[in-house]
């Protein structure tokens, strides 16, 4: 890992911290970068009980076996990438230790776990028009009956290969995009969001705002 003072997120050159607000009131679309998360690529045979249980023992949650679904336990997120491939997302700094714990727990088995942190940039997208923005550049069926909270999918967004994860019903998405495409993807999203009125939010504030919106909506959905 680079020394802390040298470390830059994929979108650092856009100086989003200087543009961000804490309360994007009225914006139809809210964007932020979610920098610096640990990302691990996990490969293994999902039909092998020892592998599945070993992973569950370490993570506290099993690797999702249903295609295009996500399992979350505490601050660890496990996204389905393929029938024998998952992406484990951890808070910054926990990835190295987790690689060791998984390697120890699965020692002797046929598996692979690799630290791929920083290979993908993560863009947070929320707001009542977030789905409309994605629909401009993505051929996935994003209707809630087909894609809702807890769904993930790899697809293309404006010709970029992306991994989409829907987090809640607002809707809020995390968009994982390969680092070298992140500048283009961000600019495309800004452009696509412009007609709905968009705000850039400080990454420390996005979870607060999305939780507040979810609470507002909960009487309706209940």
């Amino acid at each position, binding site marked *: 890992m680079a020394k802390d003072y040298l470390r830059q997120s994929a979108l650092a050159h856009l100086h989003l911290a200087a543009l961000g607000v804490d309360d994007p009131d009225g914006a139809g679309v809210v964007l932020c970068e979610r920098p610096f998360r640990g990302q691990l690529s996990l490969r293994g045979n999902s039909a092998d009980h020892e592998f599945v249980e070993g992973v569950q023992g370490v993570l506290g949650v099993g690797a999702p076996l249903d*295609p*295009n679904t996500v399992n979350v336990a505490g601050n660890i997120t496990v996204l389905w*990438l*393929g*029938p024998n*491939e998952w992406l484990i997302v951890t808070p910054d700094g926990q990835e190295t230790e987790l690689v060791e714990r998984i390697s120890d727990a699965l020692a002797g088995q046929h598996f692979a776990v690799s630290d791929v942190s920083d290979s993908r940039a993560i863009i947070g997208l929320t707001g009542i028009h977030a789905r409309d923005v994605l629909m401009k550049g993505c*051929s*996935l*069926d994003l209707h809630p009956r087909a894609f809702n909270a807890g769904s993930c*999918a*790899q*697809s*293309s967004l404006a010709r970029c*290969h992306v991994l989409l994860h829907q987090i809640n019903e607002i809707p809020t998405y995390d968009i994982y995009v390969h680092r070298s495409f992140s500048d283009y993807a961000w600019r495309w999203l800004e452009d696509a969001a412009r007609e709905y009125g968009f705000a850039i939010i400080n990454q420390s504030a996005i979870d607060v705002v999305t939780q507040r919106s979810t609470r507002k909506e909960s009487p309706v959905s209940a």
Partner: protein
Amino acid sequence: MLLIKCPWCGDRDEHEFSYGGEAHIVRPRDPEKLTDDQWADYLFMRKNPKGAHLERWVHAHGCRRWFNVERDTVTHAITAVYKMNEKPPRSSKT
């Protein structure tokens, strides 16, 4: 544009996939025992049917798995999708 049903991810747009040519071509066990004609046949000669065709596709922008598709080369209608280790549908004439 085709709507292709990935065996894992379900219906996805054609542009997420890449085409892999004719399916079920088996590499000869002892290539060194083949004549040049037999080897050339394995390497280069492909069916070019008008109608049902068994072919390989990979979900390149999705789960990155290879699978087989039965597609009508005239109408582009996809009549079957099955995984790599599965047998082609009985209806297939190829």
